[in-house]
């Protein structure tokens, strides 16, 4: 066991390690910044033009990256927002319908329009998944082009409109390049900030472990709408810049190939990375220039590239650059929890109420999964829930955590009814849970996964994270410290930087517990935490669970390992076919004849 000073030592070491890797992570960006800033010194005007185009595209892709790469929404028609922004800026600046606006004002208005339409396109993603959302964005892209063609009085139809001209000093090609470059740099900085914030992590949770995200209190609709606002706004700004760059726009300029370029740049780069998609954008913009005869085939090649990536390297550039996670892991490292750290992690017990189920019934079709169940989980106690397969144990958990609405009866916390179908409000009530099959983000580090458990404890807003304001940095520091402490508590602190999909199964169980502890739970629901663990690991897990309860939390333990249940539970409920077969202390249950016959055997 480790004492406090070693933990402190290790977290300082982790902090040093962290800042060193932060410099390492920032290095490629700095390099690109230097190359970009000094470009006119060594490149001709034509390359300047291509570089400007890359910057314009990146302004859009940076925002789209949060939607596609982080939130995992397959938005393939984002060219629609580029079109929208380009036409809004051009039409307003040219004064087709109203007195002309100065170009900068037109850009700002375009950003607002883009934000609104970003949300409109994005709305379906709140309810629909994968293909449906992809097809919706595709439909939107088709329609925007049709409208641009048909609405002649405003857009000039097939003839088009002239793009806006920026005033000095940005009217010259290099001047405009620096304007776009600055915006691209700002977008990089902002999205990198979001990526490293609780919002970025929450997005990855929605992408890879949506159910767990809800259990951690992440409200998907609000978060996605925020991201769509941002992404729509920057896409429309990119559209305005695109119009300036083209100097004259027609609907033909906005082909679906562009949409493809944006989308594929992100996938080539790798999901959940900022650097990868940035390199992907640069690559795809410059690639056709090196292979002139291939220009006509560029969209075809992008499509081939997409297929190759999907089939061969789903992780993209980012995964190829992730050298740290290629080092072999120490094998057979024992996971040794340190329950003595719990007092620092969990609040002193302030909750006195119980979590109760009263006459709860749930049915699926005609099958009664649970049928009139009464249950009370007391603080400071470990409550075991056992029973044969199909007896309704996990259903009980899902009623408490709000995934299922009971047909009859009610779940109450401290006498107040818990609303059904409000999964994400359980975290606010400090009810944490783990899952039968661990639900984690495989592509993210252990630390990243555990920090997600504390998402609701941040106080900074999305905008504060975007701009890296003090509250955001304070949130991050606190979350980092808490997560390292939670990891030390379950015995995984040394694996903090490792990708979760490289861990053995038993470690995943402990990562989930660490994530649940981040919520400082008043009630902790564990769904078969010992499944797949060795006997020694089960013993350590038992000690940890008891320590969590003694710290004040009420624990509901669903398990099949009878030994663990009888060793650590204060109270046991035995279910059979959705009804209570027996309830009482371990001693009472052990001698209960029906339980012994039906379940324990012998």
């Amino acid at each position, binding site marked *: 066991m480790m004492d406090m000073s070693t933990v402190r030592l290790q977290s300082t070491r982790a902090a040093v390690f962290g800042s060193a890797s932060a410099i390492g992570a920032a290095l490629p960006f700095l390099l690109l910044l230097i190359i970009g800033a000094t470009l006119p010194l060594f490149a001709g005007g034509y390359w300047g033009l291509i570089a400007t185009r890359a910057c314009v595209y990146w302004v859009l892709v940076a925002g789209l990256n949060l939607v596609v790469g982080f939130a*995992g929404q*397959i938005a*393939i028609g984002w060219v629609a927002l580029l079109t929208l922004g380009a036409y809004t800026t051009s039409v307003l600046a040219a004064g087709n319908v109203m007195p002309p606006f100065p170009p900068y004002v037109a850009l700002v208005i375009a950003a607002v329009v883009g934000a609104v339409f970003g949300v409109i396109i994005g*709305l*379906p993603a*709140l*309810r*629909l*998944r*994968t*293909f*449906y959302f*992809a*097809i*919706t964005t*595709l*439909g*939107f892209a*088709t*329609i925007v082009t*049709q*409208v641009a063609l*048909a*609405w002649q009085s405003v857009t000039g139809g097939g003839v088009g409109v002239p793009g806006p001209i920026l005033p000095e000093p940005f009217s010259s090609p290099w001047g405009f390049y620096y304007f776009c470059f600055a915006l691209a740099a700002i977008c990089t900085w902002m999205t990198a900030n979001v990526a490293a914030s609780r919002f970025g992590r929450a997005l990855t949770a929605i992408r890879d472990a949506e*159910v767990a995200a809800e259990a951690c209190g992440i409200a998907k609709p609000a978060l996605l709408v925020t991201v769509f606002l941002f992404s729509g706004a920057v896409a429309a700004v990119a559209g305005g810049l695109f119009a300036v760059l083209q100097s004259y726009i027609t609907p033909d300029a906005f082909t*679906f190939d562009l949409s*493809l370029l944006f989308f594929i740049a992100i*996938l080539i780069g790798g999901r959940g990375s900022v650097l990868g998609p940035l390199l992907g954008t640069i690559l795809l913009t410059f690639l056709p220039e090196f292979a002139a005869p291939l220009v*006509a*085939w560029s*969209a*075809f090649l*992008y*499509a*081939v590239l*997409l*297929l190759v990536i*999907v*089939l061969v390297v*789903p992780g993209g550039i980012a995964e190829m650059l992730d050298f740290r996670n290629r080092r072999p892991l120490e094998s057979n490292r024992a996971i040794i929890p340190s329950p003595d750290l719990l007092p620092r992690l969990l609040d002193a017990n302030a909750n006195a109420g119980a979590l109760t189920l009263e006459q709860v019934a749930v049915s*699926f079709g005609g099958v009664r999964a649970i049928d009139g169940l009464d249950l009370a989980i007391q603080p400071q106690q470990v409550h075991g829930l056992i029973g044969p397969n199909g007896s309704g144990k*996990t259903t009980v958990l*899902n009623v408490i955590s709000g*995934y*299922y609405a009971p047909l009859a009866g009610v779940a109450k916390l401290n006498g107040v009814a818990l609303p059904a179908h409000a999964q994400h409000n359980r975290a606010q009530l400090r009810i944490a849970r783990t*899952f039968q099959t661990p639900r984690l983000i495989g592509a993210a580090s252990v630390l990243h996964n555990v920090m997600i458990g504390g998402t609701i404890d941040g106080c900074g807003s999305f905008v504060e994270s975007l701009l890296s304001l003090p509250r955001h940095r304070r949130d991050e520091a606190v979350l980092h410290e808490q997560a390292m402490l939670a990891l030390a508590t379950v015995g995984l602190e040394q694996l903090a930087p490792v990708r979760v999909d490289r861990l053995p199964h038993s470690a995943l169980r402990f990562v989930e517990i660490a994530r649940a502890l981040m919520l400082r739970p008043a009630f902790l629901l564990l769904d078969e935490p010992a499944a797949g663990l060795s006997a020694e690991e089960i013993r350590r897990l038992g000690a940890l669970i008891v320590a969590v309860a003694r710290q004040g939390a009420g624990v509901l333990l669903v398990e099949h390992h009878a030994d663990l249940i009888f060793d650590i539970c204060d109270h046991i409920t035995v279910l059979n076919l959705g009804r209570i077969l027996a309830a009482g202390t371990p001693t009472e249950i052990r001698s209960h004849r029906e339980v012994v016959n039906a379940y324990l055997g012998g």
Partner: protein
Amino acid sequence: MVESIVSYGVGIGCIYALIGITYNVMFSASRVFSFTAGILGMLGGVLGSLFIARLGMPVVVGFALTLAAGALFGVLTEIVAVRPVLKSLEQHLYVLSTLALALMIQQFTAIEWSTEPQPFPRLFAIARGGFDQEFWMPMLACVVVVVGLELLYRYTLVGRAFLAISEDNYAARALGLPERALRTASYALAGMIGVLAGFAGGEMLLAFFANAPMLTFYGFVPVALGGMGNNRGAVVAGLLLGLFQQAANFLVGGIFASVAVFTMFIIVLLARPEGLAGMAAERRV
């Protein structure tokens, strides 16, 4: 005017319905919505025009070759874009792999065929008039496909095996059904239905590469409204979509029609993601 709204609307509605059925046949076999559905429709027009108009083949030969090419492309889709990703846990991959394949074919067609719409030959040497072959051919194709599928699923062993796979893949495999071969066969069947849609609707839509994304979107609307895997729902929704679109086209102009269809699509999907006729699946945690 009512007459032309109805004939255009029903004609195009049948094409949408057929593309919807193409989606459904692939979906039933693999739980995958493939972006290649619209591509198949586009290929039906382009290949028909290529074989009959450009290469001067007899109509029957051109039709048979088009169907064969459709079946081949269906099998190719299964092998290249579906089979490798079915095993993957990541559910989004099939969206990307089928999209990639669809775009490859679309770009290839644009470059090697033409970027401009090309005429589609008249198949029967009858004089143009009122309810022309242009309109009744898609209808005929739609009726043949719907009735054919019903007969296949209901009365043949292979058809029942298709149903078993779409109901419960694992159970069907446990019974010893050759799941992989059946899936490939489904994709071949879907390929033929898809090109048939484009071939029958060739005169209406012309041989044009850009029909692909258009059909991919408008062909999916009947699936979304009619419920996944529900062919009858797709036909009803496809006809309604065609009539609505044409009525709006004639009465208030094209922009409104597209915007209205899109808005309706989103609203229905948001209100009833399982389709107007479908049932919500229980969520599993």
